[in-house]
């Protein structure tokens, strides 16, 4: 099957070349980070996690959302999704690969990475995050690949695979729950210290992931001979609709508790993000765009007319991907660290090298995604022919 990755159109190879170049540039800058230290980033004593960990958090959500195509197909026998499960699983593989890379580029001492296994520490949530992420990567590679192979050979997938597929279903929300627990159990960080963090993570994941999948499915239809299907896209759109509505609801639940209780340690982070604090607040316009955009997108998705028109659907899904990305990728980490535990405002702004390394990791992820999608689409085209 892998041989399909080595043949293709000019456009396919151009895309691979562009992604590989971006990835290589990111790697070169990463070498600089290895020798100089993480000081080339915008992180600081007060904001000790930044862009890398934010991307990681967002992408765990994208990865987890594969369950939204796997679950209806395998548990509800929703046959239509048989065509797109592979797209969801391969998206998860690419997303988890990026997550792992973002963790590695964020480490001060990547050479000591294996200490996490050499000295296993179950009271650290990071230990569990390592287990669930690697497990999820393994499950999706195995399940995705073998089901696709069986499909190509027109035989049923091996029997022993079924338990692994079923296991991958609860495993998906577990990766994002554990990731939320990285933040939600820290006593001194009011912005993160909320029981609704894991539910919020999941709702935003189940909105942004399937929204991204819709966009990818439309691209696949446009540029290949394989059509993921109108019904499939419409069902995904309904999933996105419910998830984004729940996500907006959860956000207002959070706002109520924080602002009705008026506990400063919890309120000040919201003030920083949405109004600015002590005269500082570069994220303010971003955060307003994010929440207003998310509400508008949720309302638009409710309208069947907008959802059923694939152009307006694509635009709305794009808005959802961007607004949930700002919420998690920019607001979540900065908002948690500012103000610091001493109530001082030291802002975080990513530096150019940091952004280049980040782009490099994204490019690597999309390189993996492109190759995997190429393999999947070739098999699908083969079967149809």
């Amino acid at each position, binding site marked *: 099957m892998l041989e399909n990755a080595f043949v293709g159109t000019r456009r396919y190879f151009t895309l691979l070349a562009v992604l590989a170049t971006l990835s290589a540039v990111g790697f070169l800058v990463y070498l600089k980070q290895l020798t100089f230290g993480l000081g080339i980033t915008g992180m600081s004593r007060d904001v000790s996690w930044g862009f890398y960990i934010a991307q990681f958090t967002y992408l765990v959500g994208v990865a987890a959302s594969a369950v939204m195509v796997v679950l209806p197909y395998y548990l509800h026998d929703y046959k239509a999704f048989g065509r797109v499960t592979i797209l969801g699983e391969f998206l998860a593989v690419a997303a988890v690969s990026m997550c792992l890379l973002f963790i590695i580029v964020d*480490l001060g*001492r990547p050479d000591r990475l294996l200490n996490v296994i050499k*000295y296993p520490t179950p*009271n650290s949530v990071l230990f569990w995050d390592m287990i669930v992420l690697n497990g999820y990567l393994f499950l999706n590679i195995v399940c995705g690949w073998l089901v696709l192979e069986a499909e190509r050979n027109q035989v049923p997938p091996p029997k022993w695979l079924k338990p692994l597929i079923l296991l991958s279903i609860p495993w998906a929300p577990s990766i994002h729950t554990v990731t939320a*627990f990285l933040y939600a159990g*820290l006593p*001194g*960080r009011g912005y993160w210290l909320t029981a609704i963090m894991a539910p919020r993570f999941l709702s935003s994941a189940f909105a942004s992931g399937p929204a991204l999948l819709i966009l990818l499915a439309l691209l696949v239809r446009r540029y290949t001979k394989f059509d993921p299907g109108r019904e499939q896209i419409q069902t995904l759109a309904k999933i996105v609709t419910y998830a984004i509505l729940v996500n907006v609801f959860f956000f207002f639940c959070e706002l109520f508790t924080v602002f009705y209780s008026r506990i400063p340690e919890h309120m000040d982070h919201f003030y920083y993000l949405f109004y600015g604090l002590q005269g500082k607040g570069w994220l303010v316009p971003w955060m307003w765009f994010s929440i207003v955009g998310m509400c508008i997108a949720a309302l638009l998705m409710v309208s069947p007319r907008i959802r059923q028109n694939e152009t307006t659907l694509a635009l709305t899904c794009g808005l959802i991907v961007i607004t949930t990305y700002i919420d998690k990728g920019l607001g979540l980490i900065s908002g948690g660290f500012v103000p610091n535990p001493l*109530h001082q405002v030291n802002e975080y702004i990513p530096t150019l090298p940091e952004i280049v390394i980040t782009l490099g990791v994204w490019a690597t992820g999309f390189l993996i995604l492109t190759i995997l999608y190429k393999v999947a689409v070739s098999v699908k085209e083969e079967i149809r022919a």
Partner: protein
Amino acid sequence: MGINRRDFLKLAGLLGLGGKAAFELVLPGEVEAAVAKTEAAGTRWALVVDMRKLTDKVAARCIEACHTLHNVPNFQEPPDPKLALSEDLKNRWQIKWIWTDIYEHAFVGFEQDHKWEKLQGMNFLLLCNHCDNPPCVRVCPTKATYRRPDGIVMMDMHRCIGCRFCMAGCPYAARSFNWRDPRPYIARINPDYPTREIGVVEKCLLCEERLALGQQPACVEASGGALIFGNLNDAGSPVRAALRAHYTIRRKPHLGTNPQVYYIV
């Protein structure tokens, strides 16, 4: 038939690490606390800061003593003027084991109304609180930071992977990270104490190297009596005497970390 706490803990132990971890998620620190009871007879170091004696000058002496002894780099005033940094970088790369900050920052959530105006703007000496229930230890994925039986929250800088989870976990901002090679910013390297490499976290270790030699922590020695150090489990120790005689406050006690630095105000 009920099951008492001791039996329950034994059972949790039998269930192995997974059991312990599950328990840890529900009741963080409880397992440690139950086990720690057997150590009550031993040593438990604590520090009392007498704010009546702590002038800014005394505080500066304490900081100087600690930072020169422990090879803490000075990004504010580098030894070589050519290494001078922008204000932004000075701030971002800062490494501090012990430092001062005003009451409003040191005691966030413990604000008093205007009748306590004496406290407003008063500089407090801040350092790692060597908590009984340290969140930094709970979150560390490699046990690079751990709690010694005598209460010192230690750092193994050779095991630290630089994930900085402990920095997110610490509610006192007591931890610093080596964002770059610190050595060019150390005025005079003390050969008796290690310098750090890129990419590891560091903090106050309560001068464990001096305690091993029977000496007081460097800041205590330099404080001229403003800092009182001793064994909390010894009723006759100077810290116990100070705590008996005075009203003291601690930073963020409501978080349940049980910090072991006390302030007489």
